[in-house]
Every structure is written in structure tokens, then in C-alpha cells.
């Protein structure tokens, strides 16, 4: 186990000296209502092209996943698990028929009740989660980009410069989360910019602004991490034992995410990798093996000639 170390400051590592605090998202999926306001706001603000209408049959998710034209994606998971049942505050000893006789004259203290009895049917819960680029501390997409099109901003976020990207496509399979993708008609790679243009103006990203439940919270990453810890503690105290943070740990395989999540189930249930690692962590080893293999080839070729002797 590593001991807790100083959290990496990606902006400083990229050479920014006097830079604003690292900004990010904390997406608290427990309060997401699946309204997709974030998806829409993102498309609107960033002028992301439409990508057709497809009815997938995956609950309310017809967006399927992040890609070149989807920078926020709301996942819907239907589960035969208890827990989504909230106590609506109904009193089952109340005589609803008698109450109905009151008609519209329901007394104010009783108003807000419904005459429906909560069914005791099967366990069911509905998880919703708004996914986005993680703006990794160690971002594979940025590391492998051969043109320098992907760069680290002063806010510690990761952004593509579309005037430089030559569409080599390397960043796409490099991302351990399946975020960035190529627009086929345009050839270049696209993804969430964490609304770099809005940040520069002191505004919050469009998705966070639009989120009606504050499931998407934007702010300095330090603050968000603190707030998220508090929220998990609160949920645990309330008996929601499976509440957990995902991507908040600066010691994880990508050095922690700039956009992290509070989940109610295992990450892969939401389509997240359970233990993502930045591919370039193994790059020194890759280069060593490449070097050794090249030397082996050179030696093999030399041996092929030595073994052949002269002239034959």
C-alpha cells in the first residue's frame, strides 16, 4: 500500500505556475432523477451535433454511452434490489374512502396524500447516473496524443484542440473509460471540455448549471472531495451501506479523477471500469521490451549471416 502522498497537481505538472485551483465535477447519482437536462444543456452549449434517434430498449437510456457527440450520458439501471422505496409518509391506518368523501375539501394537514396504497410488490430500484469525461490526473488520451492536440488546461482539465487534431484516433482506445471518440464525418476526436470557454468567464459548466437536483456539482476539486466524503458518511448513517465514491482516490490507477461519482452499486453496473489504470503507466516497460526485441532482431540477423558463411 502506498502511503497517502501529496495529491498531484496536474496543472502545475504541465508547467502552469500561477494557476486557478483544479476544477471538477462531483456527480452524486443518488439524487439524479434521470431528466437528461445535462445531456441537453451540453449539446446546446457546445453545439454538439445530433446523433440520430435510436430506441434501444435499455430502460430510458437511448443515448447508450459517451462518444464524439455525447459528452454527458445518463445511464438508467433497473434492478431487482430493495432500497429505492422511499417512505412516502402515508398512514396506512387512514380511511382513504372516508377522506375521499371530503372531496376537494380535504383538510390542509391531510393534503398531499394520495388514495393509492403502496404496493408490496417485488423489490425494484432504478439507478440513474450522469457520466462524463473524468479529466484524469494521469490522462491516457493526453499522454498518447502524437500531435499535442490534447492538452492540460490551467484548471487541470483535459481538452482537445480541434484545429490541431489530425484524427489519428490514438486517444480513443487509450482512454480507460471509453470517453473520447471520433466523429466519422469530421475525422477528428471530440469529448467534454468541462466547458473550458465558460470556466474562463468564471461560469460553471452547462450541465452543472442545468441539473435541477444538484446531482452534478461543480467546483474546486478539493472542496468537492470533502463534500463527497461528508455525503457518503451521511448516507451510511442513514443506512445506505452501499453508497461509495468512485474516482475520488488520488492513489487509484489514474491518479484520481477530476470528475468523480457517488454510486450505489459496483462501478461496472454503471458501465465504469472497476479498476482503471492509465495505460502509460506501463510504457517504460513497453519501451524496454521494444528495445530488447529490436536488439534480438539485430542479433538474429547477424547470426543468420554468420551461420550462412561466405558466398552461399
Amino acid at each position: 500500500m502506498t502511503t497517502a502522498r501529496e495529491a498531484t497537481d496536474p496543472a502545475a505538472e504541465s508547467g502552469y505556475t500561477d494557476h486557478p485551483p483544479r476544477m471538477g465535477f462531483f456527480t452524486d447519482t443518488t439524487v439524479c432523477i434521470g431528466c437528461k437536462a445535462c445531456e441537453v444543456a451540453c449539446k446546446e452549449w457546445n453545439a454538439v451535433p445530433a446523433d440520430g434517434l435510436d430506441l434501444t430498449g435499455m430502460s430510458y437510456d437511448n443515448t447508450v454511452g459517451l462518444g464524439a457527440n455525447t459528452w454527458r450520458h445518463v445511464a438508467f439501471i433497473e434492478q431487482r434490489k430493495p432500497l429505492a422505496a422511499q417512505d412516502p409518509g402515508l398512514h396506512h391506518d387512514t380511511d382513504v374512502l372516508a377522506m375521499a368523501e371530503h372531496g376537494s375539501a380535504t383538510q390542509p394537514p391531510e393534503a398531499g396524500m394520495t388514495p393509492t396504497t403502496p404496493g408490496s410488490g417485488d423489490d425494484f430500484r432504478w439507478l440513474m447516473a450522469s457520466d462524463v469525461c473524468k479529466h484524469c490526473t494521469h490522462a491516457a488520451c493526453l499522454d498518447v496524443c502524437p500531435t499535442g492536440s490534447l492538452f492540460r488546461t490551467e484548471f487541470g482539465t483535459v481538452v482537445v484542440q480541434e484545429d490541431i487534431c489530425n484524427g489519428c484516433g490514438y486517444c480513443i482506445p487509450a482512454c480507460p473509460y471509453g470517453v473520447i471518440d471520433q466523429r466519422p464525418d469530421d475525422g477528428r476526436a471530440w469529448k467534454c471540455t468541462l466547458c473550458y470557454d465558460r470556466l474562463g468567464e468564471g461560469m460553471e459548466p452547462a450541465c452543472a448549471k442545468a441539473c435541477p437536483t444538484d446531482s452534478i456539482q461543480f467546483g474546486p476539486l478539493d472542496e468537492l472531495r470533502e463534500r463527497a466524503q461528508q455525503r457518503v458518511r451521511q448516507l451510511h448513517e442513514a443506512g445506505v451501506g452501499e453508497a461509495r465514491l468512485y474516482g475520488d482516490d488520488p492513489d487509484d490507477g489514474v491518479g484520481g479523477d477530476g470528475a468523480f461519482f457517488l454510486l450505489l452499486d459496483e462501478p461496472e453496473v454503471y458501465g465504469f471500469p472497476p479498476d482503471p489504470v492509465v495505460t502509460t503507466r506501463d510504457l517504460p516497460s513497453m519501451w524496454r521490451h521494444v528495445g530488447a526485441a529490436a536488439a534480438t532482431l539485430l542479433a538474429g540477423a547477424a547470426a543468420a549471416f554468420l551461420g550462412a558463411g561466405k558466398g552461399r
Partner: protein
Amino acid sequence: MTMSDGHGSLAARPAREATTGVNTGRRRGRRGEQPVVPDTQFTSYYGKPIINGPVWKSPDIPAYLFLGGLAGGSSLLAAGAQLTGRGRLAAVTKVGAFGAITLSLGALVHDLGRPARFLNMLRVFKPTSPMNMGSWLLAGYGPLAGGAAASAVTGKLPKAGAAATAGAALTGPAVAAYTAALVSDTAVPAWHDGHRELPYVFVGSGAAGAAGLGLLGARQGEESPARNLALFGTALELAAFKRMEKRLGMVAEPYRAGRAGLLVRAGETLAAAGAAGSVLGRRSRVARLLSGAALLAGSACTKWGVFEAGLTSAEDPKYTVVPQRERLLRQNHAGGGEAQRGNPAVPQSG
């Protein structure tokens, strides 16, 4: 105004405090809680892939991988042939190396989303990007291979030609090997996890391919180094592939299944047949030519198979999720520690 204004204190935003998911009422225990699924059991989001698979197209990128190996190996044969006075073998492999690298570069540019911006590859120098390093390498190797070929064809500037031949032979092995780092440096399970052995598979396959070219082009009596190189390359490729599959476990499945499996098997069979044929049929011109063709085709099939296996492993979330789950499980056992979270201190491979 600071950026966090409007996101103020906890108390100001009661919605954030909603205890959604809390069952405050009667708990329904009737069904008896199912035991939690074992950690290695595989779950996914509607079976959708976790990572976005490569958008690299076939045959562009398989051809790029194959031709790079062919070029690198051919430059070695060329230099050796020149040193040992095998004139025809030298000429053929010099021209072959330049032709292969030119086509390889063409395939790469063709695959770009914005081919006109190819030169943006050289606007930075970036060791963390194998594609960037590869571009610089090709920028060095290409002209050397070109110079060697031009001098061999025209017979002009033999000194410069010899120097270019030597230069191409020194950079050639790197050209044949670096494409392994190129594919491994991704989140594609079959490629990334194979990063220790793929370089040897790639140079072995490149050597066999170049040997095939040598067998096809050599004058009778000149070909024995090519035959030796075929044996060496094929043995290296097959051994490294075996080792890789053994180490990768379930992640190696795509190398043996479906279209990718077919291509890999074809590659192995052709390489073995070519190498054997070149030895057994050493007195026969026909056997030599057939062996050469088999070796070339085998090298192309191997690279193609590796490429396709990568696509398959990216497409199926199980190759991403299961190994990561197992890694977490191992760490929890080893550390006795807290579940749910990865610990990068334990490297997955070296």
C-alpha cells in the same frame, strides 16, 4: 467572484441532502437477501463495451503493422547481403524495404481522419506517445531506406548508398518493434496486457516476412541467410506468442476465437510451412519461391490477427471488467484491506 460562488454551503442546498434510497418504512425481508454476487462474477451495463474500441480501419492499420516489420527486417538483410557480397539479395531487400515503408506510411496517412494534417505528428516530440516517436523514427528511417534503394537501383553514389544502408539497418529493428508499443499503449485488453511479448512477436513476424522477400528475390545460391532468418523469425514469433497466451489467461481468448483466431492460426501455419519448406526444399527453386510467398503471407496474417483480436477484446466488456475485478480481489487478499478501490502500488504487470 470565485468559481465556487453559488455552490455554497451545505445548508444552502437542501436537495443535496435528500436521503434518496433510504427505506425508512417497513423493511421487506420476505425474500431473504440473495448472497452478494462473488466479486469475480461479471456484470456490465447492458453488455456494452467499457472502452471505446479503436477506430483504426482494416486493412490500413494491419497493413501498416505488417509493412513496418517487413521493411525493418529487409533493411537488415540488405546490409548483411551487401557486406557479404550477395548483390541481388541486397538490391531486392533495399528496394523492398523502401517500398514497404512507403506503403506503410501511405496506409497510416490514409487512416487519419484528417490526412492533410499528417505533419502535425511532428509538431511535438513526445516520448509518452509511441505514435509520435514512431513518426520521428519513420522520418529518420524513410530517407535512409530511400537512399539505399536509390543507390542500389541507379548504381550512383555507392559510398552514400552504403552509409544509408548501414543507417537503415541500425534503425530498421526499431521500426519493426515500435508498433508493438503503439498498440500496447492503449486500454485494449489483448494488446495492453500482451505488452511484454508483443514486441518479440512483431520482430519475429517481421523477420520472417523479410526472409520471405529475400527467398523470393535472391539469386540461386544467395539465399541461405534468408533461410536462416526465416527459421529465427518464425521460432521467435511462435515462442513469444505461446508465452503471451499462457500469461494472459482469459484475455488471450480473442487470439484464438473467431476471425482473429483464424488469422492468427493461418499466420502461424504459413510461417511454419514457409520456414520448413525453405529448409527441406533448398534444392528446388519452386520450393524456395513457395516458401518465400508463404512467409510473407504468414507475416501479414499474424499482424492482421493481432489487430482483429484487439478489436474483439475491446468490444466485449468482460475482457475489461474481469481482469480488473481479479486484480482488486488479489489486492484485497494481499493487503487484507478495504474493498472497492484499486491500489496502483501493486503493478499489474512489469
